[in-house]
């Protein structure tokens, strides 16, 4: 196929997609509006199960199986990164040098670290009550730890980051989600059914299994992101291929 013909095929395909897209958009309900059939039903179901944050009720109760899929995608990608960015035979590890940090940067980062960590834990813990949840809070917790890399240097980060433990926590979070889901089976519910008592509306312990699944996601995401970033940081800071190292010595 010549280049010219290929461009024609591409143009034809692009035109088809454009026409179908415009036709589909014309049929959409107008922006905003007051009729939300799915939203109304989701809110009703969330309130019936004493979950104040409807989004969390959808994520961890009404559509808990979808979240299991998403969590597994993250787990799989972290696993893939660990395999791809591992230290290969022709690579060596160099001890990272202690780095000089501007005092104002250090002050700011050391102040922001505990605050960010607390916000992250708050977002995880209040997933069933207010906006946020295990995923958002988990990412915030993971990034807050990396403020230590900005405030001090990579060796300080490595000291508070026993990678093996985080890898175990990542797997444990993933497993906990499945186990809580399976615990519904002996109670006579479907997999991932909300089998626990719903508790008092708008308190930390409300929502049945929602806070448990939310916490499992929080642990999985926080540990997964730490492991993911650790692999990237190792490659960027520590791991050098052997010929590269020989160059450095020469």
């Amino acid at each position, binding site marked *: 196929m010549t280049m010219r013909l290929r461009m024609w095929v591409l143009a034809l395909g692009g035109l088809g997609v454009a026409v179908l897209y415009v036709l589909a958009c014309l049929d959409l309900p107008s922006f905003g509006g007051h009729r939300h059939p799915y939203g109304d039903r989701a809110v009703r179901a969330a309130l019936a199960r004493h979950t104040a944050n409807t*989004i969390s009720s959808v994520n961890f109760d009404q559509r808990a199986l979808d979240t299991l899929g998403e969590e597994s995608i993250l787990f799989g990608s972290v696993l893939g990164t660990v395999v791809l960015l591992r230290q290969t035979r022709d690579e060596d590890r160099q001890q990272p040098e202690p780095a000089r940090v501007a005092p104002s940067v250090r002050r700011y980062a050391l102040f922001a670290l505990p605050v960010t960590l607390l916000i992250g834990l708050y977002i995880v813990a209040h997933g069933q009550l207010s906006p*946020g949840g295990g995923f958002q809070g988990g*990412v915030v917790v993971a990034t807050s730890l990396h403020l230590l890399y900005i405030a001090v240097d990579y060796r300080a980060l490595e000291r508070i980051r026993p990678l093996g433990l985080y890898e175990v926590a990542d797997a444990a979070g993933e497993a906990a989600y499945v186990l809580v889901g399976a615990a519904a089976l002996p109670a006579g519910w479907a997999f991932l059914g909300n089998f626990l008592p719903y508790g008092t509306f708008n308190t930390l312990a409300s929502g049945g299994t929602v806070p448990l699944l939310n916490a499992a996601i929080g642990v999985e995401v926080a540990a997964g992101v730490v492991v*993911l970033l650790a692999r*990237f940081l190792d*490659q*960027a800071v520590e791991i050098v291929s052997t010929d590269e190292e020989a*160059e450095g010595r020469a």
Partner: protein
Amino acid sequence: MTGELPVLLGLLLVAAAGTGAVLVRDPVRQSFVLSLLGLSLAALFLLLQAPDVALSQLAVGSALTPLMVLLSVRKVRRKARSERREERE
């Protein structure tokens, strides 16, 4: 119309940041524009009353992704530098 003004502004901000992220060619600068794009997307989601999505976008789009881009650039540049040195010898 005036009620939709904030959303319209948010959309324009996202369009501007998105176009900027494509037009900037240097990966390091691109990661900063990408972070800006994440921030404006988060603002847009907030205006559309989706704070949960806004939080995810803020955490992933404006912090995690740019950081991963920066780390990858650092690794690639270090490798390229040592290869160039090899060629000269």
